[in-house]
């Protein structure tokens, strides 16, 4: 009887060990999967990659701020109406790495923005490329956000 019991206990303890090892692998895999979350939020969380938009106009306001820099542009529509569009870019650190300076953009500057519209249909765009007043074309996307033109994000098959 006691022998049977100890055999049973051995089998049970092996089963528990296997379950524990599987659990540890699951925890580890979950941590690996969470690494891309370090980007503030992904491009596709807020913007629609199938809705490109070009905005040309005058800068009315700049928010040089974490976690994303915003600037606002007055754009003249074909019907002559003026619309104020918000443009989201990376944070200050991300923009500096892409060659922006804090004074690269000033209120009153004429800029052309190539970006993508927000999914909610508001007058907000993710500014992927911005043509600055001096003719320089700079990338404005958040590094690693997986959006169009993002060279720091891993693509399938990398």
């Amino acid at each position, binding site marked *: 009887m006691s022998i049977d019991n100890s055999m049973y206990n051995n089998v049970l303890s092996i089963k528990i060990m296997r379950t524990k090892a599987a659990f540890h692998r699951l925890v580890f895999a979950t941590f690996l999967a969470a690494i891309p*979350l370090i980007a*503030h*939020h992904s491009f596709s*969380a*807020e913007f629609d990659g199938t809705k490109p938009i070009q905005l040309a106009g005058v800068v009315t306001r700049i928010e*040089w*701020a*974490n*976690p*994303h820099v915003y600037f606002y542009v007055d754009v003249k529509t074909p019907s002559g109406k003026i619309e104020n569009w918000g443009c989201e870019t990376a*944070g*200050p*650190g991300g923009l*500096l790495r892409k060659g922006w300076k804090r004074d690269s953009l000033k209120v009153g500057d004429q800029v052309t923005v190539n970006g993508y519209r927000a999914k909610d249909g508001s007058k*907000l765009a993710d500014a992927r490329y911005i043509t600055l007043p001096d003719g320089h074309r700079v990338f404005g996307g958040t590094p690693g956000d997986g959006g169009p033109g993002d060279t720091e994000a891993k693509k399938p098959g990398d």
Partner: protein
Amino acid sequence: MVLRFCQWLYDSGIGTQIRESIWVFPIIETTHVLGMALLVGTIAMLDLRLLGLLFKQEAVSEVASRILPLTWAGFAVMFTSGFLLFWAEAAKSYYNPAFRLKLVLLLLVGLNPLVFHFTIYRSVATWNYQVVTPLRARMAGVFSLALWTGIICAGRAIAYFQK
């Protein structure tokens, strides 16, 4: 009134400096994440002891007295770094539904241990060594785990509602 206070914080020198910084903001954010591991990681151990899933041979009061100092240290890190992030974003956080939900959950997660300590924990001597603790103690453990999980989810969601 609250909005005015948020706007005042947002416009203040320190708030603006954090918001416009290159390194300070991400360093505070990272500290907030590290503090989360300390705070929630340690309180979860006590919660799991109450549920009879961890440190089953140890007295509940022993587990609590060893772990809670670490939890409080984590709380200090979280509160300080969290307040600095709020300082930089206050005027935007005010409108953020995920941030509002997080504040409500934080209030509840603060009430939970108060209720626990002033009710069932008073009689801990009678159930200190039970693997499975009384229902009210287990409920405190479940509430704590659920609320902290909700707080982390709501905190992460702030980024998706910030405009």
